[in-house]
């Protein structure tokens, strides 16, 4: 344990960006939890008298075409964006880890079927597949989550399968088998817990991408509907004002989006350094 801490300190010292990312992460989590309460204005209240105002002391991030306070909308949107990404990642993590773990452990026909499924998903450009899924299943937030989960599935399946097939032949698994453990017991008690650390890295690398994906889908008009505050749709609303110079409508939600993704990408890198220093690129 002590060695682990030493290593963690070493990684953090080597890469101060990771420390920064941790700080940013806590800030964003706080915002997701309390953003709605802390917002200075009602994110949905429009007031055409103050429409399209540049950032000022009263409205730090300015106001949009309906006079809504952009700061309040950006703060409120944090929770929805995080919720979408988190539930998508959780869904693909659970399904992917179980399928991949089983595939790696049992091998044979099950492994081929799971592998084929992952390959088929990967045969599509992933964002395009997500568009197709949302178009087919219906335009709703739940389907955005589902589509984002499906396109992330192959990554979890692959990591879990590789780890499980390595573990299958490990000595302690052999020992557990000799001690009379059935397959289900070995999988649940010995294999599954051991594939979690590499899966954690995959999750944090994946969160940023999931947020980007969900925001991209709502940017093209899928899922979240106006007037719900959500970063992607807010950028889309601000897009038409960019060419006339009202930059703040798109900039602030876009910057929030970027910061969140940046934070998760840095965290993912940092976590990978922590868990597996050799794989650092």
């Amino acid at each position: 344990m002590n060695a682990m801490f030493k290593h963690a300190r070493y990684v953090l010292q080597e890469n101060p960006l990771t420390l920064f990312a941790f700080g940013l992460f806590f800030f964003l989590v706080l915002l997701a939890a309390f953003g709605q309460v802390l917002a200075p204005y009602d994110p949905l209240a429009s007031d055409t008298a103050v429409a399209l105002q540049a950032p000022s002391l009263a409205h730090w991030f300015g106001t949009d075409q309906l006079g809504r306070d952009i700061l309040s909308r950006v703060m409120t949107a944090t929770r929805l964006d995080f919720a979408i990404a988190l539930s998508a990642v959780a869904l693909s993590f659970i399904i992917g880890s179980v399928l991949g773990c089983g595939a790696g452990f049992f091998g044979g026909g099950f492994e081929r079927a799971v592998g084929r499924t992952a390959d088929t998903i990967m045969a599509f450009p992933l964002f395009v597949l997500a568009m197709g899924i949302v178009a087919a299943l219906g335009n709703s937030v739940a389907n955005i989550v589902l589509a984002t989960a499906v396109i992330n599935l192959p990554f979890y399946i692959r990591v879990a399968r590789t780890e499980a097939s390595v573990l299958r032949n490990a000595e302690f698994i052999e020992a557990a088998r000799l001690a009379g453990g059935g397959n289900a017991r070995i999988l649940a008690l010995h294999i599954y817990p051991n594939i979690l650390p590499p899966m954690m890295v995959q999750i944090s690398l994946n969160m940023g991408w999931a947020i980007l994906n969900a925001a991209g889908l709502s940017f093209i008009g899928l899922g979240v509907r106006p007037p719900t505050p959500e970063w992607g749709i807010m950028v889309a609303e601000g897009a038409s004002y960019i060419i006339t110079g009202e930059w703040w409508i798109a900039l602030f939600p876009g910057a929030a989006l970027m910061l969140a993704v940046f934070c998760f990408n840095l965290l993912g890198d940092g976590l990978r350094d922590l868990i597996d220093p050799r794989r650092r690129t």
Partner: protein
Amino acid sequence: MARKPVWGTIFRRLLGALPSLAGVVVVTFILTRALPGDPAAFFAGAAATPEAVEEVRKQLGLDKNLAQQFLRYLSELAHGDLGQSLTTGQPVSTELVNRLPASLELTLFGLLLAAVVAIPLGVLAATRRDSWIDHVSRLITTAGVSLPVFFTGLLLIYIFYFKLGWAPSPMGRLDPYASAPATVTGFFIIDSLLARDLGLLTASLKQLLLPAITMAIFVMAPLARMTRAAMLTALSSDYTRTTRAMGLSRYTVVYRYALRNALLPVVTTLGMVFSFMLGANVLVEKVFSWPGIGAYAIEALVASDYAPVQGFVLTMAILYVLLNLVIDVLYSIIDPRMAAQ
């Protein structure tokens, strides 16, 4: 020592791509049948009468069982029939074929720009490992991949169109007063070159530059990172040590030996890069009103016009399978070990 000819390799890779292609066709078929509620009602449009819906159901063969429907779907695909757009009344396949070159030109030019910047950056970061240039490139590439493409596009438009006035208005491939060059490849840059029309070439380049840079910023990160990692592996390899021990110049060591070998893993990651790019392409087309297949799909999506969306997904998937095939063939040409297998 006789190596098998390249054609054999290409043929074998082609066979290898068949399962992916089959998977893609099956999934798109499932997606057309997965429409919630009555697909016929969806395809007929919101304002259709019950009789019209019945008509559509017959037309689409939705009254048959699934196996028959699938066969019908296959035969339609074989004839290049992707259905009709409700909003324009045009066959989907015609529209897609007309718009595909615009999307391809944007994607390929974006990839070219990204490669031109990312590969030297990756090489520099690897040869000067842990120097400031390594850290800066790490920061830039992480930031680049964190930027939502649609947001980057808007930022670029604000700076270069609104503030500086350097870029033309972000509306399509040419300004409204110019007319497109005679279609040969469908790529405006190449076609205007073929027509020896320098004015048109600059005009289309100007329109292309900003959206292409947007795409490039997004895919620079994976390319630069992969190049750096592959370069580090190549530079610390035994054969690089040999070249150093043999006293070859630094140029030969880094470029003729390490870089060429490092490009092999980079080429294999191009598949993932294309997956990113084809997705980003949709968003960039919307931001820049680029008349490609992505913009077409978004318009149809908003209008609940499903045939074009499904045609688009299928086209993109097939395009992606083909691009992966090209990458595979390219790889087996560059790497003599692959060709010999």
